[in-house]
């Protein structure tokens, strides 16, 4: 909405330079599997991207003012759907993968239609409970989910075109990496369009002042359900990719701690931004978390992440996060712009 009444000319270097730096950075990331075959680097990046999609889903629901504290349940739903369809029922990979996100989205739709009538703290509690329910079902429904043993899935089949094997998921990790890039890109494009269109504005309205929005013709539940369902679909795809990447899914992969981590990454990255914030937050903190997990100090990760969340919420107001420091870096340090300040309202 910021571009209204502010026409951006082609020579607006203050806008073009930061964007081209981001573009260059993205190209560099895309080329990483070409330069290195390191399993550690490529697999960490792939997992980062997968979790970033989940974090983006959380941010989209947050845009409507709702706390979805069970986003990892949708990853479990997507992952289990794909695993059950391919392994237990013998369906080919691609249709199963396609269905997995839709199943997860459908369940989000059904839950949303019931819970999002009230929203608020009830929604937070019920999504929290939903995460546990999905985990318990996965644990107890042995004939289908194989209980605590989990399901061993296989890699996606090689893609063959005109008799040539183009992509083989068994020989290297690069195909998974580009698969992840595709998923992140599709999610980013969809979320970008949602943010730019009337939907994004309406989401803002429902979050900032539900009563006012309702009196201006916005049906709150409809827009909350749209956000929750879209988030559910893409989170489900992220879960399915995760399952086929690690080639195993157990009830313990997507639990309460993962949901909370998704929340933390999104908040620290900046919930004011639908794409950049969650991706940046996940990229930094997932990797820091992996590193901290290797140190033998129990609770260090939880302690540090908790402290960072408190700092971000206290010092960066109104949904701002690390991603906003990027803008600050260019305006304050590079261009040395002085901000035009308006009178602060007195309390």
């Amino acid at each position: 909405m910021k571009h209204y009444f502010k026409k951006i000319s082609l020579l607006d270097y203050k806008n073009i330079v930061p964007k081209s730096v981001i573009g260059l950075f993205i190209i560099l990331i895309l080329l990483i599997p070409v330069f290195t075959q390191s399993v550690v680097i490529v697999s960490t990046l792939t997992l980062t991207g997968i979790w970033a999609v989940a974090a983006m889903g959380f941010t989209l629901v947050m845009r409507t003012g709702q706390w979805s504290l069970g986003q990892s349940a949708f990853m479990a739903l997507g992952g289990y759907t794909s695993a059950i369809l391919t392994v237990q029922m013998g369906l080919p990979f691609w249709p199963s993968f396609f269905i997995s996100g839709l199943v997860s989205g459908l369940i989000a739709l059904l839950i949303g239609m019931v819970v999002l009538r009230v929203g608020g703290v009830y929604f937070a509690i019920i999504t929290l409970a939903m995460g546990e329910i999905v985990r318990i079902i996965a644990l107890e429904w042995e004939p289908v989910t194989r209980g605590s043993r989990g399901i061993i899935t296989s890699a996606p089949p090689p893609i063959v075109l005109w008799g040539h094997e183009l992509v083989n998921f068994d020989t290297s990790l690069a195909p998974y990496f580009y698969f992840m890039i595709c998923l992140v890109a599709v999610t980013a494009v969809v979320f970008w369009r949602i943010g730019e269109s009337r939907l994004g504005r309406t989401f803002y309205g429902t979050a900032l002042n539900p009563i006012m929005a309702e009196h201006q013709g916005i049906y709150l539940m409809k827009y909350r359900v749209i956000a929750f369902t879209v988030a559910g679909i893409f989170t489900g795809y992220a879960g399915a990719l995760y399952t086929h990447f690690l080639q195993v899914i157990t009830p313990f992969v997507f639990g309460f701690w993962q949901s909370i981590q998704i929340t933390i990454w999104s908040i620290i990255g900046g919930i004011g931004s639908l794409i950049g914030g969650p991706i940046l937050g996940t990229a930094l903190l997932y990797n820091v978390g992996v590193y901290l997990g290797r140190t033998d100090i129990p609770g260090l990760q939880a302690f540090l992440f908790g402290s960072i969340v408190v700092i971000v919420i206290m010092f960066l107001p109104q949904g701002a996060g690390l991603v906003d420091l990027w803008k600050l870096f260019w305006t304050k340090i590079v261009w040395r712009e002085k901000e035009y300040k308006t009178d602060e309202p007195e309390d």
Partner: protein
Amino acid sequence: MSYLELKNVSKHFGRLTALDDVSLQVEKGEILGIVGPNGSGKTTLINVISGYYSPTQGTIAFEGKKISGLRPDKIAKRGIVRTFQSNVLYAGTTVVESMMISSYLQYKTNNWQSFLNTKAWKKDDERAVGRVVELLKMLDLQNDMNLPADGLSHGYQRLLGIAMSLIANPSVLLLDEPTTGMSHKEAMFVVDKIKKISEQGITVILIEHNMKVLMGVATRVICLSFGNKIADGLPEEVMNKQEVVEAYLGTEIL
């Protein structure tokens, strides 16, 4: 058949009767003033019409169709839009952003067209933005477009509230005390604008305590007291009626 018709509307909150058997007809193009002492049910009346509460008894009909019991967003879609008694805004947005969020009902294109950024949507969006600018100019807010809405002065926040209701394309506008906390000059400015809104064919219902404002603008006034309608008529008639004076000032004991 009146334009907006309330038939024997009552609203109870537990044992408290906020509105007691109120019947009211509003004709198209009227500026109806609602007066009454504090706690007499004025805001409840607006809340019942706009769908924030559904009436305990009685029906409300708009253009011949029943609207009581509908959700607020459906009533807003039918064309009844309200403002709020306190300055209720979208926190953290600028003036123009608040207007763009409120412009939901301005659009003829749907969410898919908006999502896919079609030509029809772009055209529609341009028209909506034009309308936003037009309304902000009309309400003297054009210089504050890119300022944060909650940084505006009290009077301008009231005006922004009116602008945000007008962008939702109302045919009936419910104004809940539009001039509270304003100086006489500012209040007269609002009166002027309400007259202009009325000239555009919008029916206005306003709650007002300031009698001078009401005398200048209303074509008809009703008075509520303890949830009952005790007077209905031309402003001068209502102001001088014995019951109204008693409701405001009490009875003489001699």
